[in-house]
């Protein structure tokens, strides 16, 4: 008997919150949250506390750091500190938007492919294969060079290139769940396919969704920064970490901080989100449970062994 031990009431309604909670209590998760949180704080609070206007030409190009300009100046003599503080929020916002878009489109495609099977499955997954054949950055560049560099288009391009990978992962997760009897019960209650997917299947996918979201956010940041570096970002006067690396690399010997600071922040952000994602995934799988806890849980829950017995 599974013996739900008296007194161990767990709140299972928001399972993703529970995984998140136990993830940030591991060293890996705490480090990830710390790093990512720091960079997000810089990007969000930065514009309010920047000492100067990011666009103002204040001193000599590539001026060394000084008491007045803590990180020196860039190739036009603008304050690097102010530009770093101001140049993150749009990147973050766009990365988040592209991630949400990619996850939503990918999840919808993957879940429907797995649940509907048959012809929709073939159609969706072959389309996914075709898109996956292009390297993500090349695909985004292709779209942008045809339609021109507009911000919404960058978000759209990056988001759509995430979708196929997300679709694959969620399709395999859904295949397993859609075979369970509770899905059949919902069908026998006359639920429409869309409702079955949204109400019965989706809630069980919170773990893969969370892990995918973290992973895709990391990739979004990298690709966005990369696109900005290549010149597909905000138009020039506006500050952006990716653009800054490109603009200032000529003066690397004169004032390295104009390149190092934005590069460092991008690196910290991606490492942070990646660590956090990893920790969440592990927490959800139960890898980081203490051995004693895991053994007790196994001892108390022989259900998985018994379940398939006469299947």
């Amino acid at each position, binding site marked *: *008997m599974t013996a739900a031990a*008296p007194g161990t009431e767990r709140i299972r309604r928001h399972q993703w919150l529970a995984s998140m909670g136990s993830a940030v209590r591991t060293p890996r998760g705490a480090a990830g949250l710390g790093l990512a949180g720091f960079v997000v704080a810089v990007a969000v609070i930065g514009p309010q506390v920047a000492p100067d206007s990011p666009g103002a030409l204040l001193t000599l190009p590539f001026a060394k750091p000084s008491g007045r300009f803590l990180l020196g100046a860039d190739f036009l003599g603008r304050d690097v500190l102010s530009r770093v503080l101001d140049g993150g929020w749009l990147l973050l916002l766009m990365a988040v938007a592209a991630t949400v878009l990619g996850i939503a489109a990918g999840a919808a495609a993957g879940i429907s492919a797995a649940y509907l099977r048959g012809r929709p499955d073939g159609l969706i997954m072959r389309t996914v294969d075709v898109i996956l054949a292009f390297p993500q950055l090349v695909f985004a560049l292709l779209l942008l060079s045809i339609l021109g560099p507009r911000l919404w288009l960058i978000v759209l391009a990056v988001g759509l290139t995430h979708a196929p990978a997300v679709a694959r992962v969620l399709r395999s997760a859904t295949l397993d769940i859609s075979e369970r009897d509770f899905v059949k019960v919902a069908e026998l209650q006359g639920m429409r396919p869309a409702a079955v997917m949204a109400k019965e299947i989706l809630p069980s996918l919170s773990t893969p969704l969370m892990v995918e979201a973290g992973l895709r956010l990391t990739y979004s940041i990298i690709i966005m920064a990369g696109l900005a570096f290549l010149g597909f970002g905000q138009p020039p006067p506006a500050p952006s970490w990716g653009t800054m690396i490109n603009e200032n690399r000529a003066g690397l010997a004169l004032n390295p901080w104009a390149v190092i600071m934005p590069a460092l922040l991008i690196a910290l952000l991606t490492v942070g989100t990646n660590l956090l994602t990893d920790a969440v995934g592990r927490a959800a799988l139960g890898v980081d449970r203490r051995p004693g806890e895991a053994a007790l849980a196994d001892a108390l829950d022989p259900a998985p062994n018994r379940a398939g017995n006469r299947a």
Partner: protein
Amino acid sequence: MSAAKGSIPGAPEAQGQQRRGPADRHGFRLEVRDLEIRNRRDGPAVVSGISFAVRPGDVLGLVGESGSGKTTVALALLGHTRRGLSVSAGEIRLDGMDLLRLRPAALRQVRGARVSYVPQDPSAALNPALRIGYQLREALRSHARITGDPETRVREVLGEVRLDASPGMLRRYPHQLSGGQQQRVALAMAFSCRPSLIVLDEPTTGLDVSTQRHILDTVRRLCRRYGVAAVYVSHDLAVVSELAAEVAVMYAGRVVEAGPAALLFGRPLHPYTQGLLASVPVPEGGRRLTGIPGQQPPPGHRGPGCAFVPRCALALDECRARAPEPVPLAGRTVLCLRAAETGTARAEPRPAAAVTDPPAGAAVLSVRGVSASYGPVRVLSGIDLEVPPQACVALVGESGSGKTTLARCIVGLHRDWTGEMTFQGARLARGARHRPVPVLQQIQCVFQNPYTSLNPRKTVGQIVAEPLRRFLHVPRGEQSERAVSVLGDVALGPRYLSRYPDQLSGGERQRVAIARALVAEPSLLVCDEVTSALDVSVQAVVVELLRAAAARRHLAMLFITHNLALVRSVAQFAVVLRQGEIVEAGPAEQVLADPGSDYTAQLMADVPRLRS
């Protein structure tokens, strides 16, 4: 230890009676004394005070509900504990040698060679990527010193388990064998090194009765022939009573009653043993089953007193305060303060017949000439079946007989069938999507596996309220009231409304699934193997609840099962299915007591029965 090594004979090819080395000074092959296993060294005891002994050639049955610790004890006999658990006290003596004191290298030599293990699920235990011949030889190769020529031995053991020892058989992969054949291979592997002790962990749970009968016969025969001591772990008392000379009943990590099988099954003294025996369905009798309500406390939640108190009808205040000590009584050991009185307390008459005759009337469901297939494979042909109003029809068959496919056709989950089905006079469409909502509401289904039939992300309240909302359009305010009332029908209190399925036991989950079906106010309930994932004691509770609820609501029921013993306790009519065709149909009493076909007669003969 050196003495033990000397006991291994060099040439084991001898046929017939063969004694395997000396047992210890009391004549026991295996002796377990005061075994205690804890979760971490200082954690709560998972099992404690376990003592038993087995003679050469004998089988000891280790019985109890799941979670009682019987598998933990069984694995300890191989010197193994699950991750996080460790043996904190006691000894396990095999031919006088304490297994728990062996070094890892020595233990590896003992495992497989002198103690072997037959797992519950052979399809998971055999390596799917290796031919069975290779796997059999591998077991022998690891212990090359103590056996002779592997090829001869492989052929010999395959013959012993009644498997064809041809090269063709040896070249097969596990998936090319049936479940019964796989289990025979596992048995052959276990017996191949001529062990002193063999541990069998529910080896027949997933098998059909006839296959089970063969496996049991094989185990009995080989243990006798080679003087092997066997420990047979099972929750099925009927199986154990057919095989075991001695029985140890476990509850919440303790042995509550142990002794000769005939005594224990004939006159059980511990209230728990009595409860388990009353839960076992009898194929010949249509009596009501009485299960044991409630569930056992997990490790760490066992109070100072007797762990059985919450489920015991005889409990006194003293039982709550003080843990009982094992006392020898009437030829066995009992762990109960009131052991001396319990034998007399059980004088109540056997419960009345469970099923009553249904009223006459037009059939609720009639199936005419239905044939179904999965792609090119035909699984049902020409099925005719009628479910009269307020009656229960049991559909009996072994695995692969097509009984679940028929259920899926009826409820609308399988669409690839021909023929005609009428429900309350109207034709049934193929597939649930083509059926009108009232039909969906009128035919409700309870699935086999309660671990997958409830959405883990919904509370019991949400699960039970869903049909109310969908089918009956009950206003939100009344939903929880109706849900509470139907949960009451399956003996679950209102506090279950806010629980999630993973906080429930298997039996409780299945009761929620039944409540979900009942709340829709159906006129036909299709139950597909609803108890096969449950313990016998829980099965009795669930079947009785189901029977009572159906009678109260005047439901017609199609009860699908592989367990013939259950039929008379729930159904008035029985239909026997074999390889997609109906072998026999009629009143349950007649079909089971006086079978018209050899097949049914054979099935009835193979059903394990309590021997007392």
